[in-house]
């Protein structure tokens, strides 16, 4: 038993394997926040994130017997959530229109303002990205996928992946600077 899968978790997993609703509920509650944070950054809204979250947990509960218990359950759960989000993206959003990023030679951001931002607000900026930028940014920056892996997952070229990541960053900077400007105007009044 690896140390990252505690005895309590192991007990819950055993209960889930027996399709015990109580165990499933407890496992769901325990990993709800973590899984939701993954889902939120791959979707544009909380409702969409909930849908992916529950689809992911359904996969977890129905395919738990395929989970190798010598590995980290948290990592397995994370991968399932990301894959579910990618499936959702492939299924629902095939014909997206890429935003043109505004030309901005230099974007300046006030660090103090950013520090005051809640995590939800920062993640909501990712949600505001177009799906292609959002997915590439989340996969590359937060979940640590390489451009080759991203290209394979999203069925795009490596160059397109790099380009999308660059544009996503640029877009996020612009959104952050807008927040700074809004905040400056509010304070100056």
């Amino acid at each position: 038993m690896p140390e990252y899968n505690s005895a309590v978790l192991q007990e819950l997993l055993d209960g889930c394997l027996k399709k015990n609703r109580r165990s499933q509920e407890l496992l769901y509650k325990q990993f709800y926040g973590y899984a939701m944070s993954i889902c939120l950054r791959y979707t544009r809204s909380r409702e969409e994130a909930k849908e992916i979250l529950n689809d992911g947990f359904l996969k977890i509960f129905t395919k738990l017997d395929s989970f190798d218990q010598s590995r980290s359950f948290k990592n397995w759960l994370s991968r399932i959530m990301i894959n579910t989000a990618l499936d959702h993206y492939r299924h629902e959003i095939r014909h997206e229109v890429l935003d043109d990023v505004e030309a901005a030679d230099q974007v300046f951001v006030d660090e103090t303002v950013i520090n005051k931002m809640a995590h939800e607000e920062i993640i909501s900026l990712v949600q505001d990205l177009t799906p292609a930028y959002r997915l590439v940014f989340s996969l590359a920056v937060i979940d640590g996928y390489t451009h080759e892996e991203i290209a394979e997952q999203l069925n795009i070229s490596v160059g397109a992946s790099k380009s999308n990541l660059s544009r996503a960053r640029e877009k996020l900077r612009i959104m952050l600077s807008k927040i700074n400007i809004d905040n400056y105007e509010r304070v100056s009044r």
Partner: protein
Amino acid sequence: MKEFPDDELDKLFRKSSEELDSTFDPDDWNALKRKLDEHDGKTPGAFLKKWWPVGLLALLFVAGLTTYVLTSNGDDRKQNLSRISVEKQLSGKTQKADPGKAIGKELENGSPEAALRVNPEKERKLADSPAGTEDINPAKRDLLSVRSSKNVLADGSKNRKILPRRWSKTGGVYLEPDRSIGRKVDGAFYSDNKNSKTGRRTKADSFQKQDLTLEENKLNTLSFSENDKKPKEEISRITPVRLSGSPDLTERAGDLNPDVAKDRLVIRAYLLKSKSFVLGRSEKLPEVEKVEAPVTEEPSLKAKEQVPMPKLAVRFGFSPDLSSVGLKNFTKPGTAVSLLVEYSFLPKLYFQTGLISSSKGYNARPGEYEWPSSWNDQKARPTSVDALCKVIELPLNFRYDVSQSDRSRWFVGAGASSYYMKNEKYIYNYAPHTYNVIWYEHEAATGWYWLSHLNASAGYEYRFSKKLSLLAEPYVRIPIKKVGYGKVNLFSTGVWFSIRYTPVFK
């Protein structure tokens, strides 16, 4: 204000993502729970989606069984028909020829000659009558009877009780031989009038003597069809005469040698000509025609009366079991199987009992569930209780047939049931952030609850063979006692799909 480099931007979002902790929303879990229930087949829609192939297979099985039973019944009728023919030929013991088979075919083809030739004694009586008035009508009746039997046998739908030999007992027609005479050790008949000593011999006697010789020769050649033209022509010239009675035959019995005995089942078809001849000379033919109707009807009525009424039946059934507390939340259909015995103690009224094994799933609200004393240590109360109980049910019901046709009937049923709670599993659901919870789930087996439910049902039965029928019977179980560990008023409903076997006791 500073420029925001890539690494810092990435760090900002990575940190926010890791530290973001969304609060648990119970609605999300409820939504997932519904999905899980659907996946596990615990909702009616999912149940049907999951089990429809099994249902289809069951239907195909029943259809196949029905077809098989119906087909085999048809074969039985054919076999009965051929058995009748063989019986008609006194068990067809001749080995060289197979007159039974041949005659059976003739009977099926409706040949009156074939039907008549089984009774040489009768033919003799006919011949004995002096161009008679008294014997002519019975002879005509014989012919009419044979014509009727031809029709009866041709349509193949009547049973063996409608044989001409039986009609003699039911009125007016005498075809059954007097077995006290002309019989050898095994009771079969023979015919040989060459030793007749009555002194009443006429021209016909000499003709009949010739006929017998011809007849025996024909038997040896195993065929009637090719060589019987000549004797028929000869016989057509025969004048009906009065033959001697039984004493002569009795005397001759001892003289019968084995070869003759072998041929004693010979049927002298050509003697029919003599009957025709006799009838042709009758002046009372129109009166005889009226006899036909009662002769055919009476045996069939008797046959109907003799059909034994089935008293006992066995039923095997399957039903989805929809259980709930308080007539709501029918979300988890279980299954129920039954093995019931029915006994008819009055016409149309049955007593019914047996065993039913069912799996009942339901959801109870806190007000519907009585908390046991062991819960006194826990102040927190669940928001709901999910239960899954395995129950053995002992029903005591009465069934009344409301309407009945040849193949189907509508019925209603009522009674009471006792529940044996064999196994009870309870899962207690709490609101988020409920603390000091001791009881998350519990398993129990609380035993018998005598006459805890009232039963009511109505159904339709379709009989597809003499012994098997299919039933569809919606039912309800209304609680009159609280059952189980949580003492709930458990309401159940469903539809029995049963196969009913009715053995016929004589």
